[in-house]
């Protein structure tokens, strides 16, 4: 009991619990204590300083490996095997939630989650949306042009425009800066800024978002729309 009591004491303070020889009947107490302690408000949030320190540590590690944390030729074999495992883990993970629906793979049936078609209205015109300077590299801006709403994103210097309406049931998408995704508030579908479907919970994957013709003229970003 001494060991367990000290363990609980540490857990309730903000200390690292010391190890002890746990009796079989202690297991449930330890689990319960952890479950309760984890529910203290704010518990699941990492400290900012920790996140930055670990980032720094990983950056150092990435620099030390010549190819970075990527796939090098020499290790290709190992990595491939690991990814076979990963694929099956992913399949298992998907199967857990599969009572509701099924996973959609890039090469599966149904609408392919590749870039959507370009929306070209029968009669439209180039309409200025914002100044080029307002859209920095990596930037994302929402725009509205009466009948068309969408998002502009600059990547590699190029500006692209995608529709801002979910292809499932036409709810307006919201841009989440942290994940850089366009999220649908209605059924939790999310899209990449390329228009590709990233996540969804539907039986059939929604179509990717249509692209809109976009150009930069005289320091302005213009979208072709009705």
């Amino acid at each position: 009991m001494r060991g367990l009591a000290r363990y609980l004491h540490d857990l309730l303070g903000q200390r690292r619990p010391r190890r002890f020889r746990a009796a079989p009947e202690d297991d449930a107490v330890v689990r319960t204590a952890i479950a309760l302690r984890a529910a203290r408000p704010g518990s699941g949030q990492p400290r900012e300083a920790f996140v930055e320190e670990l980032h720094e540590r990983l950056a150092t590690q990435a620099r030390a490996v010549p190819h970075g944390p990527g796939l090098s030729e020499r290790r290709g074999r190992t990595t491939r095997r690991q990814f076979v495992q990963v694929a099956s883990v992913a399949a298992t993970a998907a199967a857990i939630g599969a009572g509701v629906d099924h996973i959609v793979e890039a090469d599966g049936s149904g609408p392919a989650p590749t870039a959507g078609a370009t929306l070209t209205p029968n009669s439209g015109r180039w309409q200025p949306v914002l100044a080029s300077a307002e859209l920095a590299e990596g930037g994302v801006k929402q725009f509205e042009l009466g009948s068309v709403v969408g998002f502009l994103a600059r990547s590699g210097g190029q500006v692209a425009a995608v529709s801002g309406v979910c292809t499932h049931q036409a709810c307006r998408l919201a841009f989440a800066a942290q994940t850089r995704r366009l999220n649908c508030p209605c059924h939790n579908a999310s899209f990449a800024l390329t228009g590709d479907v990233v996540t969804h919970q539907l039986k059939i994957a929604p179509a990717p978002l249509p692209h809109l013709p976009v150009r930069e003229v005289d320091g302005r970003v213009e979208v072709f729309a009705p």
Partner: protein
Amino acid sequence: MRDALPPDGGAGGSADPPAHHLHVVGADAYPDWEAIYRDNVGRIYGLMFAKVGNRPDAEDLTAEVFVTALRPLRVSASVGEVRAYLLATARTVLASYWRRTLGREMTTLDDDVADVFAEASINEQAMARARAILDSLPDRYRRILELRFLGACSLREAADELGVTVGNAKVLQHRALRLAAERGM
């Protein structure tokens, strides 16, 4: 208890929609390791905290997951593959933590793989789980555990709140935790 939440989410839950699990489409990939890190560090930390219940260990285990996983990780893998790989790593890291501390796996990552990246935050899931445990207890037992575990009260503060001596509060906490553990199983 096995960390599993009853399907009804326990009493007093908010009117959240049923937890659908998001599908990750294979074609999507992270631009670089930093994106992998930023997108997942919070979840992995939250998960580890839920499994070990203290910050120093949760931080160490989170670091171990990323240091281990990012080394061989192919950045072009899809988001789903990356997350599955992080979770597989987290599972191993957690299991070895328990083996070297208390000798047995007190908590595992088997059951909630699909929940980790679901919409509800890990803290919300932890709250619901705690709620289910607490709601099964007699009033005073529930109170002492709420004060001590959720409210971060010292034994003295909890004793004052309940109008008992520190010694009584200690015994109350001990019994409450035992009973909660029995019911939770």
